[in-house]
């Protein structure tokens, strides 16, 4: 892993460079319109004339406007440093309780994600235990659990929010239910695989020790399912976050990262959308990294890594 640090940095730098280059043609028309309004000579003149021209041609004809494309107020594509400044302003320079603070909105989303993730993981593990120990449950439920992964369950998120809203349940819980729902199935499928991973030899050995089935569960099945559990937890937490963000859309853009995305798209605040997006990305990365760390520590202590 250590030897790939340099290539990773090179790839990230390459992506950044591509982003900066893309900013110029994406924003050139808007920058030229602004320049014309402030009295500069633009070829060709008139926004109507320029509408159907190719952006690259316009850049070549008006090289003086390139600088302006990086500092527009509502650009089509904000430059990386604009997003970074907005991120800095909305996290460090704002009070955490302020409605303009990204940390405030991030916390709203994070709390729903974590609550939902805990519920989904708990129920998923319970169902997996049921499936492993009861053949009837295995045969009835398992095909549906697998089939449900091919269904876009995210589509019912708005309905859950509105229905729960109409019976008076608001705030954290509806979003958490969506998160739980999304993280539930990966955990079920992963845990069933994990709890079944001990082979016959190991199960037979426990029988020769005359272990009863609860001892077999705690001493063999549960420990050997850990690698599978962590693999599905990583998928589950990412899915939970997506669920919480989408769950914030239909309530009309009040609080949370999803609400920042939606209100940004209503009012054309592109920099706000991008900073909310990057905020969500950091959150997802941090959550997955925490689970990865827990995985490494747990497996090491169990002698599996």
């Amino acid at each position, binding site marked *: 892993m250590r*030897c*790939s640090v*340099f*290539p*990773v*940095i*090179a*790839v*990230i730098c390459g*992506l950044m460079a591509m982003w900066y280059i893309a900013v110029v043609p994406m924003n050139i028309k808007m920058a030229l319109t602004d320049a014309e309004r402030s009295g500069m000579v633009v070829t060709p003149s008139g926004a109507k004339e320029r509408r159907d021209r190719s952006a690259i041609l316009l850049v070549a004809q008006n090289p003086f406007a390139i600088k302006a494309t990086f500092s527009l107020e509502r650009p*089509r594509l904000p430059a990386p440093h604009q997003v970074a400044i907005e991120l800095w302003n909305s996290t460090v320079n704002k009070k955490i309780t302020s409605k303009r603070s990204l940390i405030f909105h991030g916390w709203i989303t994070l709390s729903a994600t974590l609550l939902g993730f805990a519920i989904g993981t708990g129920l998923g593990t319970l169902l997996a235990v049921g499936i492993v120990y009861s*053949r*009837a449950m*295995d*045969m*009835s*439920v*398992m*095909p*549906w659990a697998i*089939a449900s*992964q*091919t*269904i*876009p369950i*995210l*589509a*019912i998120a*708005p*309905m859950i929010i*509105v*229905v729960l809203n*109409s*019976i008076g349940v608001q705030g954290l819980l509806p979003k958490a239910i969506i998160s739980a729902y999304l993280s539930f199935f990966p955990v079920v499928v992963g845990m069933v695989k994990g709890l079944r991973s001990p082979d016959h030899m190991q199960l037979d050995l426990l029988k020769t020790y005359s272990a009863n089935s609860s001892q077999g569960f705690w001493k063999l099945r549960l420990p050997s399912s850990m690698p599978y559990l962590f693999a599905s937890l*990583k998928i589950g937490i*990412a899915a939970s*976050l*997506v669920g919480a*963000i*989408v769950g914030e*859309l*239909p309530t009309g853009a009040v609080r949370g*990262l*999803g609400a920042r*995305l*939606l209100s*940004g*798209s209503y009012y*054309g605040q*592109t920099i706000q*959308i*991008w900073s*909310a*997006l990057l905020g*969500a*990305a950091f959150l*997802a*990365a941090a959550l*997955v990294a925490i689970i990865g760390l827990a995985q490494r520590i747990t497996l090491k202590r169990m002698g599996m890594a």
Partner: protein
Amino acid sequence: MTLVILALFIWLAAWFLNVYLANTSASDSRWMKLLVPAIFGFTILIVWELVVRGLKVPLVILPPPSLIAETFLAKLPILWKDFVQTFVKGALSGYFIGCTAAVALAVLVERFDFLRRGLLPVGNFVAALPIIGTAPILVMWFGFDWHSKAAVVVVMVFFPMLVNTVAGLGETTAMQRDLMKTYGADPWQAFIKLRLPAAMPFIFNGLKISTTLALIGAIVAEFFGSPTLGMGFRISASIGQLALDMVWAEIVVAALAGSAFYGAVSIIEKGVTFWHPSQRG
């Protein structure tokens, strides 16, 4: 109340029937493996219907399955138009563009070890991010029609596909590559006859993950703005009118489309990777 008690009885009876069926000696047969989950599914539908009718649950909270089926059949023309707009135009075109682009880039990247080592961790990282959040930006760039939905789908399927293909193309062993060299195969032949076939299980894994992502992307992108048709539009509009039977009918369409799409890719996979141990079992 009698309906609720009836539902309870049906639930218990079906449960005992399934326990009995699962523990008979014939439980490993193919029919049993279809029958038991089918009984389970039907029981849920019947219990749902009876409980909703028995407790008189308002339609704006949970409509009974019979009403959903009725709406589904009655509104078939609208549902079909939504399906074409969202699935055929948005999801499918985005799926093809995204998967083709990802495989093409993976083939290019695979030639350079430096790029592969750099791109794989970045791709893995991006694949775990909530990419669906780019939907408002892409809707702003490409307009309200299906083009923006296809763009969201392209971005969503690109990274899982890229990571899987790159991983798959690296799957050959040194032994196999040496064998190709002893045959005097040029790099192109080695790619077509060895690397690409060896990568197929991974590529199809990516293709299968992407089917669900494509449908999710196309539907959720419509929540950020769409013409007055499409599955996502219909879902959010029907929720506004509290017409939950229509929402559920749309969800049925989404479920059917998702399963059929996944099934179709699986069938192609079976044909292409017939040699792989997981397909011979």
